[in-house]
């Protein structure tokens, strides 16, 4: 049984269990914290850095998705410094790949596009890298477009943790990183893939989509994840 702790978020008193993260507590209390790699029902990895928060007495910014609540903590989720860094994260994601919203199947349903608008990113100050990236359409029902991938690894986690197939993984380091299926084979040849489509549904952008969709037609449904997580908890 975990203890109940009391702490402050943006000078507002909140209480929660000590095994809860600041992100969970913030959202329970209706406080907006942007995220991209986090998804309820999957493990947290603190990779996208959008949920960075300030904690009184801690000089570094911390990702809210992996910091646990502590008694007496004083947390701030909004400051000019945080806004600056969040905008920069979004801009870096936009220049790293090839994100052209107007011709994307996920236009209007994309979490990157939504957050750019929400965080006030109306132009990108950095030079676009315009990398040459591939599209894998070898799977009979789904498409992987590396141009639109932000390496959040939701696909890797949902496949390993929920479906139990572990078809997805990461290859390479730094700017060379990309998601792969099985032993870096075309997705259509990946024998471990069960074609369940969970990866497609959790992908925040148009990197993983169903075939046969035109611009703006790809809507995603992530509700299954919380339902599955709840069912498993009840089975325990």
């Amino acid at each position, binding site marked *: 049984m975990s203890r109940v702790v009391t702490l402050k978020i943006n000078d507002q008193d909140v209480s929660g269990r000590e095994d809860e993260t600041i992100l969970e507590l913030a959202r329970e209390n209706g406080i907006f914290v942007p995220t991209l790699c986090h998804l309820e029902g999957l493990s947290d990895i603190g990779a996208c850095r959008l949920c960075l928060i300030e904690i009184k007495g801690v000089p570094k910014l911390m990702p809210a998705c992996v910091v646990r609540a502590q008694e007496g903590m004083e947390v701030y989720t909004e400051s000019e410094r945080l806004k600056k860094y969040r905008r920069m994260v979004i801009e870096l994601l*936009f220049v790293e790949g*090839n*994100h*052209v*919203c*107007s*011709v*994307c199947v996920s*236009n*209007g349903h994309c979490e990157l*596009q*939504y957050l*750019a*608008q*929400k965080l*006030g990113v*109306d*132009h*990108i*100050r950095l*030079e*676009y890298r*315009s*990398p*040459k*990236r591939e599209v894998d359409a070898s799977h009979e029902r789904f498409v992987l477009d590396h141009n639109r991938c932000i390496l959040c690894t939701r696909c890797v986690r949902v496949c390993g943790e929920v479906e139990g197939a572990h078809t997805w993984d990461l290859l390479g380091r730094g700017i060379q990183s990309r998601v792969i299926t099985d032993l870096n084979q075309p997705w259509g040849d990946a024998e471990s893939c069960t074609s369940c489509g969970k990866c497609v549904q959790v992908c925040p952008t148009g990197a993983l989509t169903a075939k046969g969709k035109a611009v703006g037609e790809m809507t995603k449904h992530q509700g299954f994840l919380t339902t599955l997580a709840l069912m498993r908890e009840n089975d325990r």
Partner: protein
Amino acid sequence: MTRTRLATVWLDGCSGCHMSFLDIDEQLLVLADQIELVYSPLVDRKDFPEDVDVTLIEGAVSSEEDLEKIRRIRERTHILISLGDCAVTGNVPSLRNSIGAEPVLRRAYLDPTLLNPQIPNQVIPRLLPLVRPVHSVVKVDIYVPGCPPSANTILYVLTELLAGRTPDLNGKTRFGA
């Protein structure tokens, strides 16, 4: 009352932003009383005039001509607005940036079966190696993303500017809108 000198420019874009501008419909009449349209694809004037108050730029900077034009426009404009995703991000024209200009020219001029296939080397402006958003070439004052930005968004921007205010586009438009 002196009218605001407005210009609209069409660089590498599809003219969709200009179409959206025209979609303001009857409000154009209200605007018309307050502005003087000094340069535009809708006006027959060849050279960009001096001392323009507001210029709306549609399209990315893709050719040597675009580059020359936008520099002159910047010099002669007080408030320069990047209108639409091509001007703001490079958008569709910039899709060629990962493969370069050569393959695009070959595809357009050499691949189709023509009587005398050749890549034009005169009259048509030479393509730049990279398609660039306007602000990577000259200073931009206001960004209006969208593909295209809605008529209401464009009307809002112009109405605010004519009233002497800086438009706050937060939440009103987005990339790909």
